């Protein structure tokens, strides 16, 4: 296969953004249609990945490798069963997001669309990168478009929110960078060659005491991104101030970068440190679940309610990740997709309301469903999906997560269930206050129901929600081997260390396992890279 399909998916939006520079800013509709076209094209190409994905192997697929800067810095991308869906989620949501801001964004349309497209490249890049340098480049580069999206098109406190967002994220990621340097130098000392290849690092067994620091550095970066309690404070600000499309991308995809980071890096690289921190991490997740839920209950603003619901839901996902068994991890990945869809959709609904009412305060609404019956139906479905109603996607994910957690710890599972209870409470109550009851505000009488454009971008989400809720096999079966492989990595490495641990107190900071692939065909890889 010679077509670099994964690179095309990653960089097509970037190419679009470059193209945009040469189009006059006054041709706004052309720009919008072009952005829509590019994102839809990206989505269609990314479907190729899904259909040609081999579910039997945990190895990364569609791998592309090329020499880049040297010193271990290579262009190396590929996807496995975990990143496949996150890439698809991104490409799926992007056209929707572009459509949703069709009329909402009226000023500086050109720059807005450029940043959206850059953002897409950044996000997909994070999910496909298999070289730590490349990963870090995308991880950081993606901050810049998001910074502008919140800062230029955001609400009243946009500057505060966007600076906080950037500084929080950077704090974590810079410390992660130091940890990357450390592993980079360890690998160099162990082998005499430079490498930033993630698979080389998987083979490097680190001394548990070293692992602790590295895990803390990586974990902090990812925990801020997820965000886990107590690093969540940037999230409500960023969500509330961001334009609708920004919130959707932030909630649906950006937060997943954190959980993805845990799955791809923190878990398999530092399993011993992980074991030490598991109780703390689980408790933090639970606090996140309950705290996020309670905060959501008392919010006056619909958007910040949805934002806090994110904190709560992401808590459940993290709890499931840390349960470290098959059901839980698979449930967590599935729930990542569900959360992307349902929270993204809820933000879209808030955006639709805001475009009509220019307010997001719950008390300004009431009885909207009388005026907007179609919207009401959509909103209801999204809300129920987020609550976890059987038949919709949220249910499958939550059940898997909770089953898995239950296997590990009954107490945590019981506490974890509060996500669902609290979600039902704050979402239904919000729905009741906003959509039902008498129309108290005369302004609501002027609301028009959904336009065709709005229906067009909401319908695919509804279809996906039912599909994922009724027949999850389509999605789950392609994850199985990757998840099993991941858990094997985590568990096998523990075994190795317990063996080498007995009797000895002083062991080197790293042990390098020879991999079988190395012996078989190292020269071939060299050729490919050229």
């Amino acid at each position, binding site marked *: 296969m010679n077509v670099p399909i994964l690179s095309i998916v990653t960089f097509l939006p970037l190419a679009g953004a470059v193209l945009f520079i040469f189009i006059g800013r006054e041709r706004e509709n052309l720009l919008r249609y072009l952005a829509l076209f590019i994102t839809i094209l990206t989505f269609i190409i990314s479907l190729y990945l899904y259909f040609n994905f081999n579910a039997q192997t945990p190895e990364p697929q569609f791998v592309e490798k090329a020499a880049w800067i040297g010193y271990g810095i290579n262009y190396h991308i590929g996807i496995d069963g975990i990143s496949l869906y996150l890439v698809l989620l991104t490409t799926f949501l992007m056209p929707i997001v572009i459509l949703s801001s069709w009329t909402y964004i009226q000023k500086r349309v050109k720059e807005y669309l450029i940043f959206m497209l850059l953002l897409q490249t950044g996000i997909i890049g994070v999910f496909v990168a298999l070289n730590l340098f490349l990963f870090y480049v995308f991880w*950081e*580069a993606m901050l810049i478009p998001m910074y502008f999206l919140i*800062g230029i098109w955001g609400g009243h406190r946009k500057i505060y929110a966007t600076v906080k967002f950037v500084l929080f994220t950077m704090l974590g990621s810079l410390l992660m960078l130091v940890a990357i340097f450390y592993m980079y130098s360890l690998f160099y000392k162990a082998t005499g060659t430079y490498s930033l290849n993630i698979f080389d690092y998987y083979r490097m067994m680190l001394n548990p005491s070293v692992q602790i620091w590295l895990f803390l550095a990586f974990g902090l970066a990812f925990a801020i991104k997820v965000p886990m309690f107590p690093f969540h404070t940037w999230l409500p600000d960023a969500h509330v101030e961001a334009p609708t499309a920004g919130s959707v991308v932030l909630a649906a995809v950006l937060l997943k970068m954190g959980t993805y980071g845990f799955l791809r890096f923190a878990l398999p690289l530092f399993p011993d440190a992980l074991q030490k921190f598991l109780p703390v991490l689980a408790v933090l997740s639970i606090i996140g679940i309950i705290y996020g839920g309670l905060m959501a209950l008392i919010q006056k603003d619909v958007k910040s309610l949805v934002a806090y619901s994110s904190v709560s839901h992401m808590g459940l996902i993290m709890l499931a990740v840390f349960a470290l068994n098959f059901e839980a991890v698979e449930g967590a990945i599935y729930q990542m997709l569900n959360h992307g869809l349902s929270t993204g959709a809820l933000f879209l609904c808030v955006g639709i309301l805001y475009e009509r009412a220019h307010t997001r305060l719950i008390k300004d609404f009431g009885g909207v469903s009388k005026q907007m019956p179609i919207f009401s139906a959509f909103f209801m479905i999204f809300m129920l999906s987020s609550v976890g109603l059987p038949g919709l996607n949220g249910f499958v994910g939550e059940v898997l997560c909770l089953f898995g957690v239950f296997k590990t710890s009954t107490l945590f599972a019981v506490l974890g269930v509060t996500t669902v209870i609290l979600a039902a409470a704050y979402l239904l109550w919000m729905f009741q206050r906003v959509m039902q009851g008498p129309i108290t505000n005369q302004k609501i009488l002027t609301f028009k129901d959904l336009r065709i454009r709005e229906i067009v971008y909401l319908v695919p989400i509804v279809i996906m929600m039912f599909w994922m809720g009724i027949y999850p096999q389509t999605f789950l079966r392609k994850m199985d081997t990757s998840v099993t492989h991941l858990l094997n990595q985590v568990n096998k490495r523990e075994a190795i260390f317990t063996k080498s641990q007995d009797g000895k107190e002083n062991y080197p900071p790293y042990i390098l396992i020879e991999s079988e692939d190395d012996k078989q065909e190292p020269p071939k890889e060299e050729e490919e890279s050229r």
Partner: protein
Amino acid sequence: MNNIYALSPLLIIVAASLLVLLLEVFIKRENRNYLAYVSMIFLIACAAVCAQFWNRFYSYFDGNLILDNLSLFFSFILALATFLIILLSMKYLTLQDTNYGEYYALLLFALSGMIIMISSRDLIVIFLGLEVLSISSYALAGLRRSDEKSSEAAIKYFLLGSFASAFLVFGIALLFGAVQSTGIAPIVEYFQSASTLSLMALVGLGFVVIGFGFKIAVVPFHMWTPDVYQGAPTPITAFFSVGPKAVGFAVLLRIFYPYFRDALDSQLIFSLLWIVSVLTMIVGNLIALRQTNVKRILAYSSIAHAGYLMVAILASDRESLVFYLTVYLFMNIGAFASVIALGRKDHEYLELEDYRGIGFKYPWIGATFSVFLISLAGFPPTGGFLAKFYVFSAAVREGLISLVIIGVLASLVSVFYYLRIIIMMYMREPAYEVDINIDNPALFLVLFLCLYGVLQLGIFPGNILVLIKQAVSSFPLL
């Protein structure tokens, strides 16, 4: 190889400056741009000669002037920097009414001083080069004669500069007393082999470091920087921020690379430099937070960058240091070029408030300025990120983890003030009309070249890295 060719880059520049001085008499005031063209032709010639001599290792004056690859590399990029500065100045000088004929000659003299410094391995010769550079710099800083700030800058620079020169000479004298030589090679050898170091030698070395610390503006020798940067004409500020810094670090590299690599008893000097590096990163970045004048922000940012460069010295990693300096040259000149682009006749827009809404009014200037700021802040995929990546990863490899953690946290702080300029440009509505003169093709050429440099070095630095590797591999040529 002892060969008179070794003098040619230097001779070209000196000839150019003398010619420009002479021509000035015959050229009418409104035609002074021709002086710039003449200077640029000679700079191109100098750069071409440097490229031609690559890998040839000429030397002259009994080896007191050597053209190893390192000095060729630096001569080349300094000639390039001067070229960019001249492009920046052409319109600026007319607009600011400071179009003196000496301007270009002084710039070229300063460049020749730098080439002397970079191509010598004797401290006395280095000192001579430094003086040539410094005296031209003092004059350049005070070029806007009618402006109080400019005169203040010149006086301040002169007083503190001579003080630093005195330290340097004193240090050289002490080293001579201990080592019986002023050559870098014998001095380094002395430090490596002496069983007990004499206090005199250590103090001498310390004084030399202080002398250079002033030029590269590390804390606590940075006091002059903000005022001089603010007062000097903006192209000259750009010149100060890259030229002397690059040379100072190159000379320090010549002294300290072999020293740290082999000397046993380097702990004292090492910890002193460690402290200097940490202080520079912290103080530079923290004070920059409170500034409201863009030139001052860039001044403190250049102090902070000196701190990161010190990390490379401490890690004694030559390649990352040279790479960082190369990237720094492009991004800093680019940033100052953007500031100049936002000026107009008799007035420069330098306060943060002036930048409100500029990004949308002048999209190209805004976008390029943002790229330079993002690069200075160290975001990928710009050169600034890769430079920091190399420096800090080299330091971690040498086990300087706490230093690197301080470094990355300091650069986190720096993100805030770089972003503040971007916030002004894109996220605030303009409070008043800012009217600038955008009819300046030379300046846009500079912006474009710097943008190209920053992105090329950030995304495909391959060829430059190979050159840098060659530049430092032939070294130390003792």
